[in-house]
């Protein structure tokens, strides 16, 4: 498994110092990238008065969690948290499965008109979401799914799998034909081919999709805003909007709740990072 880690001695720098310098430079770069996060975090623990008086760039005078507590209680945060988790997990799983099915046909099987079918699937990404809003609203009402989380799950399952189909089918088309042909001629059914050979080989890509779909769906705001009007069904990003009033914004609460809102995504990403790196070398095919 770690074969590709132990490559080439030629890659090892002759000078140990160079490697540490590059690490430091990279770390500085990363720190710059993450500076906005640090600023948001700093301002999450200030009181509103402190923020107004000393501005966002000042260091907090101690840790204050009142805005966070108020926010939690005000939106009954466990409810949107639950809704978001169910929606994002469902979409992640379903969209990956759907992508797998589609990509299998398009990437491996040379289905007739596969370019047009691929474009067909990618159409989910062509229209901006506001163009979908009115039709989906009327559809949801018609199917009695308005204000139900299932409507959002179905919609995003489709939208996300457009990307998944595209990425996965592109990857599948690099699979060595000989292996596929050999397996099929040995009497392997297409379903078995998919489940036992193709899917396991594409675990890194499937994991990428799984993580992306979860995070993308979690952060979706607009279509859930349209389809989930009441508080019982709202998601985390919708709940976060409570900090934006008609005339002003509660900035410390927005910062604190904003970070709280993405905590599940960060945790999810960190957990699944390991699957992103667990590679299967081509040798595994044999």
């Amino acid at each position, binding site marked *: 498994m770690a074969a590709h880690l132990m490559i080439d001695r030629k890659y090892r720098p002759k000078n140990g110092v160079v490697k540490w310098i590059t690490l430091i430079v990279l770390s500085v770069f990363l720190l710059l990238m993450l500076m906005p996060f640090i600023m948001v975090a700093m301002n999450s623990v200030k009181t509103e008065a402190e923020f107004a008086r000393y501005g966002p760039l000042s260091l907090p005078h101690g840790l204050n969690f009142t805005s966070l507590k108020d926010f939690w209680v005000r939106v009954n945060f466990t409810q949107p948290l639950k809704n978001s988790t169910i929606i994002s997990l469902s979409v992640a799983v379903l969209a990956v499965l759907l992508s797998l099915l589609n990509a299998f046909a398009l990437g491996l099987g040379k289905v007739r008109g596969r370019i047009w079918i691929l474009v067909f699937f990618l159409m989910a990404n062509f229209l901006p979401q506001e163009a979908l809003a009115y039709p989906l609203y009327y559809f949801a009402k018609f199917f009695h799914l308005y204000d139900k989380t299932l409507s959002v799950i179905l919609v995003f399952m489709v939208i996300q799998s457009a990307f998944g189909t595209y990425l996965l089918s592109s990857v599948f088309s690099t699979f060595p034909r000989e292996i596929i042909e050999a397996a099929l001629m040995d009497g392997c059914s297409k379903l078995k081919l998919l489940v036992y050979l193709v899917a396991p080989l594409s675990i890194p890509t499937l994991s990428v999709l799984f993580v992306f779909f979860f995070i993308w769906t979690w952060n979706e705001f607009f279509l859930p805003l349209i389809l989930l*009007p*009441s508080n019982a069904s709202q998601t985390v990003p919708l709940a976060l909007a409570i900090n934006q009033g008609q*005339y*002003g914004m509660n900035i410390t609460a927005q910062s604190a709740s904003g970070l709280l809102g993405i905590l599940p995504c960060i945790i999810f990403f960190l957990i699944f990072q390991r699957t992103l790196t667990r590679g299967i070398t081509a040798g595994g095919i044999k």
Partner: protein
Amino acid sequence: MVTKIFKLVSLVLTGAMILGMAACQSATPAPATATQPPAATATQAPVATQAPSATPQPRVLDLWYYEPPDGSLGKAWAAAQQQFLATHPGVTIHFELHTFEQLQKTAQMVLNSSSAPDLIEINKGAANAGTFAVDGLLTDMTTEATKRGWDKILSPSIQTTCLYDPTTGIMGSGNLYGVTDYGEFVMLYYNQDMFTKYGIKVPTTADELYAAADAFVAKGITPFATAGAEYPAQQIFYMLALSKANRDFVTNYQLLKGIDFHGPEFTYGATEMVTWVQKGYISKNAVNMKAQDMQNDFEAGKNPMLMGGSWLFGGFQTAKLPFTWSEELWPGNQISPGSGGNLWAIPAGSKNKDLAYDFIDITLSKPIQTLMGNAGGLPINADTSQITDPQTQQFNKLFAQLVASDGIGYYPDWPVPGYYADLVSDTQELMNGTKTPSQFLDEIAAPYNAVVKK
């Protein structure tokens, strides 16, 4: 290999399970549970569930609004909820605190569905309430209002924001589709301590206002805080224009009868605003600032004066600013921006209209109105002698004065749907100097005249 398949299978099973959970969750409709009336921290979590038994289902008033619970309106309406429950045994309130953004963008969709509540807070103006009225989504409350005497409580200029023509949606006449229980207006807030510190006189006339502004500029201080990315900048333009306007102009403008954008009022507003930028009365750097930034600047003592709405008053009081501050009607203006507040509206499909009417009644009642006043709000039916804080009393007196002198000017973005964004973007260009006042006026005239032509 086996482990990989195992992973795949378990993923599929997890997916099926989750989907099953989701389906189950969406199968049961959002329960109408008994909500304990919100106390100091308003929650919308159902605290106790009334188990429906053999007795007939208790009635539930479905109530949605977006005023934050710590503001004067939030406090008043929380008290109203308590009173409603006390006077309506056997009835419960299902209250949902919504976000402004959501109700602003999706109100039309919600009202047009079965998820609509019994009583909802909506925005006033032709673009909002007017559109909903034309679409047949709101209940006509005219007869009920006369029956309950609301038309006596709502003064004519306040009633303007409650009346909408059912065919055109234009505000000001027609049926009563909304009821407001508070008012708003835009005024001058000032930091008394800064005036004292620099020995500048607090202005009471337009000349004194300009003298004070010049004096502050001379000391290197930007006199006025403002925000170009949201509503404040366009309100400066409008306030300046109103200083040259009369009642007829406002009526013609607001009711889409058509006005001359290059007439004296708006021309003055535009050219004067450019002068303000050139003289340094407002900072060019405010072009991309948000309203919250403007408030923060005033609270931090960066700018001594602020053209601000009455909605800021309660917040300034709660913030216990570290300086003496006060407020007055904008010097030199007969008419200032202002109006009745956001509206209570009853969706046309509501099954509990009588309960909704009762609730509106309570919010208009003297005790609740006085509570609102004491919390820093602008009630329209309070017993002003009961307002304890002198500054708040003064604040309420200013509004009463404005109403009595027929000085309510509404807001610049009301006449046309979507006008707000145009005004923001065009005012930014005016401030930046990328458009001349004449070009600016042409720009803002276009959407308005397009609607008037129809």
